[in-house]
């Protein structure tokens, strides 16, 4: 199986007035094409930092202090995500590397209709598809279980679950190679969460995208991921097949993490 992304010795630090705080400390991680990779770890372990840095959205005072992340988009030459700049980076974005942010409430521009937020990326990255917008947007929305009329609505008219699904639809609009989803369900109710997780799984089957799903909820990983990477204090303590991580954790921390999950002790029906 080929890798979409190969991360080597990745380091990120935040400079504070008490010196640099290392949030990500030398991570080596491969993401295989077509898989769903779960990133687990408690709050503050550096999951978001990792994602944001990979997406090159890291803002001061954060800075990448080392490592490389070779990205292999289909049909393009591989690039080091940590080195690309300017126009090259901009073109890469969305068409090859897209993002499903956590803050579904606020990631949509409140003063633009949903369809216009689709239009944005298409005009920017795939102008040739502009004419088929009228057909494309409803199709994408339908893919995540939304009615076509949602396209004409404003974000504040949508519920959280709907917004999250709109974001998912936008994320796959250009059929990117890799989608990084940072806590896609934490803000949502369990019932909606389940729907979203289903849709995420569908994305892979329907579009064949590779997904990197970040969550601190081990349940989410258990339900969704193919492989799970566990982070602790900025380090990767364990990567493995989901079954192996849950059933036979190698690392002491992972074990502790799995054990501290309150169990319902009841089989799902």
């Amino acid at each position, binding site marked *: 199986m080929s890798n979409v992304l190969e991360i080597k010795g990745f380091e990120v630090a935040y400079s504070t007035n008490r010196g640099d705080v290392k949030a990500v400390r030398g991570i080596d991680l491969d993401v295989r094409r077509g898989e769903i990779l779960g990133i687990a770890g408690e709050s503050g372990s550096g999951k978001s930092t990792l994602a944001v840095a990979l997406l090159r959205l890291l803002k001061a005072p954060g800075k990448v202090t080392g490592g490389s992340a070779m990205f292999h988009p289909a049909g393009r030459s591989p690039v080091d995500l940590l080195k690309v700049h300017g126009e090259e980076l901009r073109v890469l*974005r969305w068409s090859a590397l*897209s*993002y499903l942010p956590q803050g579904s409430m*606020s990631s949509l*521009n409140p003063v633009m209709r949903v369809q216009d937020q689709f239009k944005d990326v298409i005009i*920017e990255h795939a102008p040739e598809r502009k004419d088929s917008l009228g057909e494309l947007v409803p199709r994408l929305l339908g893919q995540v279980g939304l009615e076509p009329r949602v396209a004409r609505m404003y974000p504040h008219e949508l519920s959280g679950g709907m917004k999250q699904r709109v974001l998912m639809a936008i994320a796959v609009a250009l059929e990117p190679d890799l989608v990084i989803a940072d806590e896609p369900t934490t803000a949502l109710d369990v019932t909606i969460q389940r729907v979203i997780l289903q849709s995420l799984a569908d994305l892979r089957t329907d579009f064949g995208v590779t997904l990197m799903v970040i969550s601190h909820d081990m349940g989410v990983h258990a339900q969704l991921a193919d492989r799970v990477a566990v982070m602790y204090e900025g380090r990767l303590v364990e990567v493995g097949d989901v079954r192996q991580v849950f059933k036979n954790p190698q690392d002491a921390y992972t074990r502790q993490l799995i054990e501290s999950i309150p169990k319902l002790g009841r089989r799902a029906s």
Partner: protein
Amino acid sequence: MTAEAPPVVAVDKSQDSAPRSGVRAWLSRHPLAAYSIRRLGLYLVELWGALTITFFFFRLMPGDPIQTLIQTLQQNYIYNAQASAELIARYQQEFGLTGNLFSQYLKYMEKLVLHGDMGPSLINYPTPAQTVILRSLPWTIGLLGLSAVLAWILGVVIGAIAGWRRGKLGSRIATNLSIALSHVPYFFVALILVYIFAYSMGMLPARSAYDSRIDPGISLAFIGSVLKYGLLPGLSIVLIGTFSWILSTRMLMVPILGEDYLVYAEAKGLKGWRILTRYALRNCYLPQITAFGISLGFIFNGNVLVEQLFNYPGLGTTLVTAIQQLDFNTILGVTNIAIFSVLTAVLLLDLLLPLLDPRVKYWK
């Protein structure tokens, strides 16, 4: 699939327990209409309140306007002019100064509301105050309105860029200049501009509104002349206005920059200017529109002195002249016009805003 709640049985007493009469039900089904009606009601209340307050303010002020008039004339003609009791009585009648304060008020309001009549002006007796005001109104609207809008546009755009490219040298200069200058009174700047462009360089005229060799009318020469003469006063309003808009826009912009949707827009790989205009600016110009309506009033205050300085034939100059001769009707008229325009502007903006900004919760 709107959640249709069951029809209400009158259970709740403390809250809204009215039966669903036709109008009420209709209104609650048409929130925009309900909002507009309520907003209009508030507008009328505010208008009435403001007009009433100003009326009583001016009437409670000492100094008999008729006496003032006589006195002014004495100063002008030096002779001890004969101001007989008869003359004073006649004028008091005409200026609506007879009867008790309350009946004066009723009479004033009646004339104002029903006939748009503000009574005779003192500075230009017997021309009615509204005529005096209407004569100067176009100049003020032209000068103040144009430059206020210009200042707003410039300020919002520059402010947004300054916030957007914060940390860059240009933005820092713009920001710090704004901090230093945004509260400087208009006429300070006006003075400095006059000194530089009119006195030292002699490039631009420092007073009046057009070249009197050109006959007023819709001709190219006249319009050119008006623009040339309006440049300095306009510039002084635009400059300072721009600075304060820069400052407030930047203050609005900075928190917006932290918003997730901007990060998201960046992640989408959109071009910088597109993010600025479609995402950042669109979210901060809307609150600034409301602010603009409210600010009109202050610009009016500042404008008085600028017009005065440039001898511009606008409302400000009329106001100052009226004040100097305690011309009640004209002062009141100008004040009322200002109140009316500010309130109306704010009303229109408030009614317009729900159309511009989908987030505005007009039913609140």
